[in-house]
Each structure stands twice: as C-alpha cells, then as structure tokens.
C-alpha cells in the first residue's frame, strides 16, 4: 500500500503539469461558442461579419489567437474597447485569465438599467401569407423585465436584414440569396412587437420562457451587447433570423449545440422545435393570439341578438344595442371597437371615420356596466407539436392501366391536406416537391414532377372578414400529348385569385380564376397561355383531410385546354406519418387519363 502512494502522487503531478503546459483553453466549447466559431472543412471560421468583432487580425479563423488578443485587451488601458466585450470578460474571469476588474461602462450599464433583465423568452410568430419574407414565420428573443407592471415593458431582440431602399427591387431575393444585405440586431419594447405582429399583421405570437440560471441570464445579456454592435451578411435560407439565435443560445449554454442542427436550411419552425426538444430549456409556454383571432373567438360566443347588434355597431348604428340587456352590451361594444381597429389597419376605413367610430363605441362601452362575460382566447395549437418540415413518401398507382411505383421528397413545408395542427389554416407552401416514377409496362424510370413552388392562401370570407384567396404555382411536369401519345416535359406556371367560404369549421368551399402558361419544346408551338377556372372543397378533421377540385382551362392551344378532376385524401397515422390517396381524371382532345395512387408519407 505504501509503495502505491508515491505513484498516485506522481500521477497527480504529471497531470497538473500537463494542464499548466496547455497554454490557453481556446478549444473550450464555451470560447468557441462565444466567438461564434463553426467547424468547416479547413478548421474554424467565425460567423460574425463585422471586422471589429474579432480582435486579432487572424481571429476569425484562429480561436487561439483571438483568445490571446482578448486577454491582451483586458490587460491594456483601452476601456472603451473592453466595454464592448462583457461576455468575453466573464469567460476570462471564470478561467482566471483576467485579473483587472471590468471597467465602468456607462452605455452598457444604461442598457442593463433599461432592460432590467429577469429572464429570456424565445418568440415565434406564425406565417404571414401576405409577405414573401414571412411565409415561414419568424423568431425573435425577448429579454423579460423585472420592472413593475407587465412584460409589455420587456424588450424584443430581433435579428434581421437591413433591406431599406431595396424592398421593391426585383433583385430583392437575389441579393438576399447572395448575402448582399447586412444582418443586424435591433431592440424594441415588447409592446411594439405586439403591435406589429398581433395587431398590424394579425399573426399569433408564441412565447417560450427559457429556464436559465442567473449566471446564464447575465451572460446572455452581456453577449447580446457584444453581438448587438455587429453585422453579418444575411443569407435568406441559412444564416437568417432563426439561425443567428441558435448561435446565441449556444454561446450561453454550449452543451445545447443548437447551431449544429442547422447546417443546411434554417426554417423558423424547426428552430423552436429544436429549442423545445432540448432538455430543461423551456419552462413554460404562453400564447398571444392575433387581433383577428381574438375577434373571431369573441364573435363565436355571441348569440343571435348580440351578433346583430354587433353588425349594426360597426356601422355606428347603436339603436339595436339599446335593446340588449345592459350586462350584454360591454362585450359586444368591445368586440366592435377591436373590429374597427382591424378595419383601419386593413385599409378599409378612412382615418376620420375610424376616429369617430372608435370614440363613439368606447363612449358607449364606458357607459355600459363594467366587467365582461366573454372568455378571452388563451389556448391555441402549439406549433411545436405540428408535423415536421421535410417529407418523403413511397407509393404505388395505376395510370390508364399502366402500373407505377413512386418516390417523392419535399424539403418544405405544408399543404392543406397535410395534418393542419399548429399551421395557419388554409395556407400552403410547397417547395421543391419532387417525384420519380417507375412504370411497369415499359420498365422505365422517369422524373414525374418537380413542383418548384406552390403558394396558396385560402382565407374564408364572411360578413365580418373579407380576404382574397390566392394560389401561385410553378412546376415542371411530365405530360402526354393525347394526340400522338408522345411524352415530354413542360414548365407550367399559374397565378390565381378568388374566394373561400366556410360552411362550418370542417368544410370550406373555394373558387379561383387564374392565368395559366406553359412552356416546353415538347408542346406543339413550344408554349401556350390560357385562363383557368377552379372550384373545390376542403374538408379537415383532426385525423383526416380531403381536397376535391375540378378545374377547366381555356388555352391558346388545344393541348392546354383540359378539364381536370382531382381528389386528395389524407389519413394521419401519427404526427409525422400519413396515408394518402389521390384520384385524378383529365380530359383532353376527347381522350381520358385516369390515375389512382396510394402513398405513405413520412415527415422528418
């Protein structure tokens, strides 16, 4: 036993010596995350674009050099620069690499005084179909406040692209792809965020309150201060609003490794799922419905008498209101006031009328008894529980007696027949949906269809809300010329608009008229243009959905003049699995084409 002890001692010595010989802990995950280093093919590269974020001239690619430069900074007298890196200072202090105290920094102190941080919340705003930049929703951060009152006085931290002056440029999207726009951070009071998303754009806000230790919260705020001064080239699909937040999370808790989940594409919905899936990261969820959703929920609670009084009130006719029992007036008048606000933002009311209506409705509200009977909308469909963004499927079918097997893949995102839980009802984004087929009769493999992009918004019209429904599509598909039975590829495009009517919560009917165009060497004159008329029905339940549509196209060439029937029915086996049946019947040149198929869809 005695012989053994010196050996243990020696082992300890060696170990300590080895540790001391290791010059700098630049490879620590904490340091790498604070510097936003990501491992690439040729070693580390820092994500942040601003030159002033990396202190060493080689700092972007060399975490060790950057750490040395940071240690040197905090040994120097340059307090102005030191004030830009409070989080790095916290790291140095933790590992005994800084001896001097952190300088007094007026601006940073003011920042913390204004924010009075009490916690952090990840915010998700749902899809906004009226703006191509918001189709996939948006994520931002909220620094919760310790101020007395409510979280209205908290602050939102938004990462976005500085596109001012270029929004209407046709190069808008190209610039965004090429990283032409600088991305940066802005700070805003939370009440402004609510106004923008809930009240102006009518989008729901989901709040995911994070479970952070006081030390992590301090580090988070300090690191926001560090990156808040920087800009980084903004790439629409990869280094976007949601991706940068993942790197912020990692900087605060490197074990999360969230950025690593988003090497390819970053869809906002996927990032909130990743955050919610990390152990002990989200402690509670809160839902803030959009103004439109709140109004709809209130209208649903009205009886016939109240609804009639409401319809009169929004036209400023308050006589039927007088016949309502006093206790029922408050709810109806408050709903009418909210609706008038909605109308003004939608551009349906002139300012003068808006003010007059608002004032008179509120005056009447104030004269009615206090207190309300209507419930406020508190529950929604948490988007975290929606089906995943990517989808692959395998199926079999028969086309005019010819059997085929079909393989499909779609990187994003959602169609009305997909399980709707957590998605904006009636909204569709179908992107790069590709399917390949093998036909048994001639034993041939073909690309059947590449659906490059399909955007649709079916939004029900009623006495209160009027919204246009639309559908835009662009695809390359394999087509047969019924005259000579030739097959070839055609690029199809269409843009259509119309209306949707909800018979009830489960059954919607729609009508769309569209402009259609096709191009391809296979076509008789290489191209045709036409107009289309479509009517359809959407049925959706928790476990199943169905879309049935009939469409007639009148085209400049007979090959384009088709009559199509199409029924798609989905049955959901689970959150991420569904069984789909499609029946399609096309009539052209007096000839029929009938197709029936079944496929199993897996989302991931």
């Amino acid at each position, binding site marked *: 036993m005695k012989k053994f002890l010196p050996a243990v001692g020696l082992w300890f010595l060696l170990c300590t010596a080895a540790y001391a010989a290791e010059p700098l802990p630049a490879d620590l995950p904490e340091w790498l995350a604070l510097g936003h280093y990501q491992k690439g093919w040729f070693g580390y590269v820092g994500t942040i674009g601003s030159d002033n974020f990396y202190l060493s001239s080689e700092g972007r690619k060399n975490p060790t050099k950057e750490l040395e430069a940071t240690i040197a900074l905090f040994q120097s007298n340059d307090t102005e620069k030191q004030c830009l890196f409070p989080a790095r200072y916290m790291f140095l202090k933790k590992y005994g690499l800084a001896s001097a105290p952190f300088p007094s920094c007026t601006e940073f102190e003011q920042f913390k005084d204004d924010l009075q941080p009490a916690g952090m919340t990840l915010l998700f705003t749902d899809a906004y179909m009226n703006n191509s930049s918001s189709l996939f929703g948006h994520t931002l951060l909220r620094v919760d406040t310790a101020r*007395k009152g*409510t979280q209205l006085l908290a602050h939102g931290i938004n990462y976005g692209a500085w596109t001012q002056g270029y929004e209407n440029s046709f190069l808008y999207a190209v610039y965004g792809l090429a990283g032409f726009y600088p991305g940066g951070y802005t700070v805003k009071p939370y009440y402004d965020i609510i106004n923008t998303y809930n009240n102006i754009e009518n989008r729901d806000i989901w709040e995911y309150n994070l479970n952070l230790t006081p030390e992590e919260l301090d580090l988070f705020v300090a690191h926001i201060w560090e990156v808040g001064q920087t800009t980084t080239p903004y790439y629409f699909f990869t280094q976007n609003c949601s991706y940068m937040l993942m790197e912020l999370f990692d900087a605060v808790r490197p074990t999360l490794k969230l950025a690593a989940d988003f090497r390819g594409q970053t869809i906002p919905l996927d990032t909130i799922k990743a955050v919610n899936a990390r152990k002990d990261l989200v402690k509670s969820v809160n839902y803030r419905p959009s103004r439109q959703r709140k109004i709809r929920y209130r209208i649903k609670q009205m009886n016939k008498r109240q609804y009639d009084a409401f319809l009169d009130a929004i036209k400023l006719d308050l006589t039927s209101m007088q016949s309502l029992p006093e206790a029922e007036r408050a709810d109806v008048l408050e709903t009418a006031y909210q609706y008038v606000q909605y109308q003004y933002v939608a551009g349906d009311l002139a300012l003068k009328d808006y003010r007059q209506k608002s004032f008179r409705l509120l005056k009447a509200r104030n004269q009615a008894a*206090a207190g309300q009977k209507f419930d406020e909308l508190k529950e929604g469909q948490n988007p975290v529980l929606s089906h995943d963004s990517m989808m692959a499927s395998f199926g079999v079918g028969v086309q005019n007696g010819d059997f085929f097997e079909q393989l499909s893949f779609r990187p994003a995102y959602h169609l009305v027949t997909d399980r709707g839980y957590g998605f904006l009802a009636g909204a569709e984004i179908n992107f790069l949906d590709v399917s390949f087929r093998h036909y048994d009769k001639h034993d041939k493999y073909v690309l059947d269809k590449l659906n490059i992009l399909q955007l649709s918004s079916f939004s029900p019209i009623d006495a209160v809300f009027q919204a246009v429904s639309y559908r835009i599509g662009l695809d*390359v598909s394999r087509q047969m010329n019924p005259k000579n039975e030739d097959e070839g590829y055609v690029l199809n495009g269409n843009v259509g608009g119309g209306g949707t009517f909800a018979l009830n919560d489960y059954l919607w009917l729609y009508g769309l008229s569209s402009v259609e165009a096709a*191009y391809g060497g296979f076509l008789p004159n290489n191209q045709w243009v036409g107009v289309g008329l479509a009517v359809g029905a959407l049925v959706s339940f928790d476990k199943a959905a169905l879309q049935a549509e009939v469409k007639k196209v009148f085209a400049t060439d007979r090959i384009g003049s088709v009559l199509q029937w199409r029924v798609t029915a989905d049955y959901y086996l689970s959150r991420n699995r569904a069984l789909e049946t499609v029946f399609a019947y096309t009539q052209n040149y007096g000839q029929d084409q009938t197709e029936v198929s079944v496929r199993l869809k897996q989302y991931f």
Partner: protein
Amino acid sequence: MNKVLVASLMLGTTLVLSAPVQAIDSTGCGLGSMAWRGQSGILPQVAAVTTNGTFGTQTFGITFGTSGCDPNGRVTGGTQKMVLAFLENNLEQFAMDAAAGQGETLTTLAGIMNMDEKTVAEKTYQNFAVLFPNENVDAVDVTLKFYQIMKA
C-alpha cells in the same frame, strides 16, 4: 428539357428563398398607436409594413415632436417619460382598457407609476370622458390628464 429544368429551378429557388428574410428598421421607434396619431403619412406607412415587412416609422417620431420614442428603442427615462412613451404607443388599447376599467395597459401603467392596480383601473374608468373628451385627442393631452387624475 435540361434548360427548362435549370431555368425553372433557379427561378423557383429565388422566389422561395426570399422567404425567411426579416427586414428591420434603423430606428428603435415602433409603429405605435394609430387612432389618435393621424399624420397623413400613416396609411402608406402601414401599407409598407403589410406588404414588405419593413418598418419605415421614423417619420412618426419626428413629426410628432414631443415623442417619447427612444432612439435606442428602449423603455427608458423617468416615470413621466415612460408614461408618455407608453401611452403614445399603446393609446388604442389604453382607450379600450380605460373605457372598460380593466386590462393589461392599466396594469402596466400602475407598475410604471408604482400605484395600486385597482386604484388606477377605477380612476381611469370613472374619468374616461375626461381622458377622452372628443375624437381628436392626442397622446400628450391624455398623458397630462392621466397625471392629473392619478394625483387627484
């Protein structure tokens, strides 16, 4: 076929990749309340917001003159400045909460003023006609009246 594929792929990709961009503004000032702001520029501004996701709101802060909007986009300053900034940006919701005698804005104002929430709610409800005497009030009027009422 190849040319069609490549061209359409590029076009489609360009279209959809414009998706997750979020345009942001250079000022910290928000859109604020609109009912009683009423600069003639508001509708085009709102249109800009709804079509492009941009927040071209700088004009509000400037034309409104007394705006409590902080250039850094933060809730800042003393009680009075905070109340003004808050009412300027939340006047529509405040008007409804005041008329009803309850709501989130009243809780927030009670917090800023360090007053009892119930007292603030009761006083605003009873004095709604004083706070909003006609349809042309602005946030400064309302803030001054609000102070008088809370002190009374």
